[in-house]
């Protein structure tokens, strides 16, 4: 009996060894023509580059960011400068591109075009600021809860549940009412304070999935410490869903800011915000729709651009959802 086994295995070893040395070389040659090695993020970037949706939204967002950063480049008029005698609710002059009268004037004689341009900053700042804060806070809490589990998970998850139960806008109103100042950072704080829960849950669940992977066990068996496992092995594999949720939510935060400002609880004069202008424009919607239409249109366009970007990112990172 042992002879049978012995000869059999020997035969396989001998017969196989020589071609095996050659076979992988062809594989290596084939690899060279393939070019740069492809990682998950590399693949996602490749995928993104081939999506018109990504390019449309990126160009739009880039433009909006430039407007937000340098509003002075696009208009020379002071958006707070009202001229009631000459410009009270003047109709838009759609032919005069980039001129103060392009979008007409509002009920206080201010250039709507200039106000739309200057209002971009508040919206972009709120959107990006809330998303960054929410991703950091929710991501960190979710990661800790998911990775360590046990009582830490229970505590964090229950806190998440409590915050999740607070109606978003209602809660934001209550928080904002506590502040006398209505600056951009106050609104960012109010929205981030209530908005981190969904990111926390998404991160928690993807960390739980990632930490059970064999490569995490393997890393532990090879002597990696907790911090290394968490940030090098678990986090990069658990990040994708969080990024997708954050990008899509960004548009939502911008409209939440506009909603709060519309209700008179978010930003307030003298800060310029599309939400404030929408509120003022909506008072005289029948005779002067332009005062409402232009800030509202810009808001929709911005939210649309962010959601489109989020969709493209989601499709690139999660091919299964296509």
């Amino acid at each position, binding site marked *: 009996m042992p002879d*049978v086994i012995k000869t059999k295995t020997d035969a396989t070893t001998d017969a196989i060894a020589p071609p095996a*040395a050659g076979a992988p070389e062809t594989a290596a040659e084939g690899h060279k023509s393939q070019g740069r090695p492809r990682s998950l993020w590399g693949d996602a970037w490749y995928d993104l580059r081939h999506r018109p949706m990504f390019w449309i939204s990126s160009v739009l967002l880039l433009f909006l960011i430039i407007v937000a950063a340098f509003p002075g480049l696009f208009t020379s008029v002071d958006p707070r400068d009202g001229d009631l005698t000459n410009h009270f609710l003047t109709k838009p002059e759609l032919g005069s591109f980039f001129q103060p009268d392009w979008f007409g004037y509002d009920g206080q004689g201010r250039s709507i075009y200039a106000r739309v341009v200057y209002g971009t900053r508040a919206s972009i700042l709120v959107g990006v600021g809330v998303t960054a804060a929410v991703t950091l806070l929710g991501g960190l809490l979710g990661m800790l809860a998911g990775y360590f589990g046990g009582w830490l998970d229970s505590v964090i998850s229950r806190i998440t549940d409590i915050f999740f139960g607070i109606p978003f806008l209602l809660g934001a109103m209550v928080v904002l009412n506590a502040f006398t100042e209505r600056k951009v950072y106050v609104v960012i704080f109010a929205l981030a304070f209530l908005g981190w829960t969904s990111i926390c849950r998404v991160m928690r669940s993807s960390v739980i999935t990632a930490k059970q992977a*064999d490569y995490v066990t*393997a890393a*532990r068996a090879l002597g990696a*410490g907790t911090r290394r496992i968490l940030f*090098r092995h678990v986090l*990069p594999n658990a990040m994708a869903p969080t990024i997708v949720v954050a990008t899509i939510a960004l548009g939502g935060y911008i409209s939440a800011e506009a909603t709060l400002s519309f209700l008179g609880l978010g930003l307030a004069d003298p800060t310029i915000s599309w939400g404030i202008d929408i509120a003022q424009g909506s008072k005289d919607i029948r005779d002067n729709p332009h005062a409402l239409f232009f800030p509202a249109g810009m808001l929709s366009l911005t939210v649309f651009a962010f959601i489109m970007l989020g969709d493209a990112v989601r499709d690139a990172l999660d091919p299964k959802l296509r």
Partner: protein
Amino acid sequence: MTIIEETSSVPTPRQGDSDTTPLLEVRDLHVEFHTRDGVAKAVNGVNYSVASGETLAVLGESGSGKSVTAQAIMGILDMPPGSIPQGQILYRGQDMLTMSYEERRKIRGRKIAMIFQDALSSLNPVLSVGYQLGEMYRVHEGLSRKAAKTKAIELMERVNIPAAKARVNDYPHQFSGGMRQRIMIAMALALEPDLIIADEPTTALDVTVQAQVMDLLADLQSEFNMGLILITHDLGVVADVADKIAVMYAGRIVETAPVHELYKRPAHPYTRGLLDSIPRLDQKGQELYAIKGLPPNLLKIPAGCAFNPRCPRAQDICRTDVPVLEPVTEQDGTELPGRGSACHFWKETIHG
């Protein structure tokens, strides 16, 4: 506990350290899993030892506790639900179970490394293999990123990966199964550990690649004079590489023997059943032998010998008394070094 002395006194065919304490010794190890349905006893008093340069093959079917024992040694058992109610795991005479987390972590990778079964899922998909290999040097030896990459290329060359320099930045999915397993081996070898535990290193590979990988492992082992615990259910793989074999059944070692002795004259009905189940060329056309029944449910292991419901030799005593691992001797009483069998009827099995 005559069993311990018996298993640890097995002569080593390949010359190891002259040190008298074995590299790794497992003593009376028990592992349990607390589940909703009760306590699953995965390992029930396992004893084995490995010396430098020696290969111990742990053989057994799924659920026999061979992988759980390895996980307990590495300290990667999920606790809870797992727990180790008793036993010792001695690395160079020090009990690893009583060490602090940091002490154990320093042993892992540097002194004892593990090769996993499924190389694809054991490599991180978002990091290049060069990064993952280099990580060993950066974490344990504090090398710079660049130096670590050079080391990674050296490692890949050592495990015969062609065009290592060109492939060092590739990701795991770009390698074939055999190549990935080589990378796993390279990773385990990186810091030249004293002991490598290979948990079914060839199961996910096809037969031709299996042979290459086993050869590579055996070469590297003799080059570095490492101890090797080879966990497998493949009797063919074992015959070539191992020095001694421990056969496990239902969380116990039922037979230990030097490798060729075991194939020649099994002293336990279970081992005999396993050997009879190997397809052989001279039995072409005949029905293949199979051990009747199923492995026992670990939640309720049969009383007496765990193998008794499936054993062709089972008598009343097998249903009441648990057999201990006794030294196996020749018919005239001459000792057979390194041999042991946990069967009430080992004499009849080996000599009858």
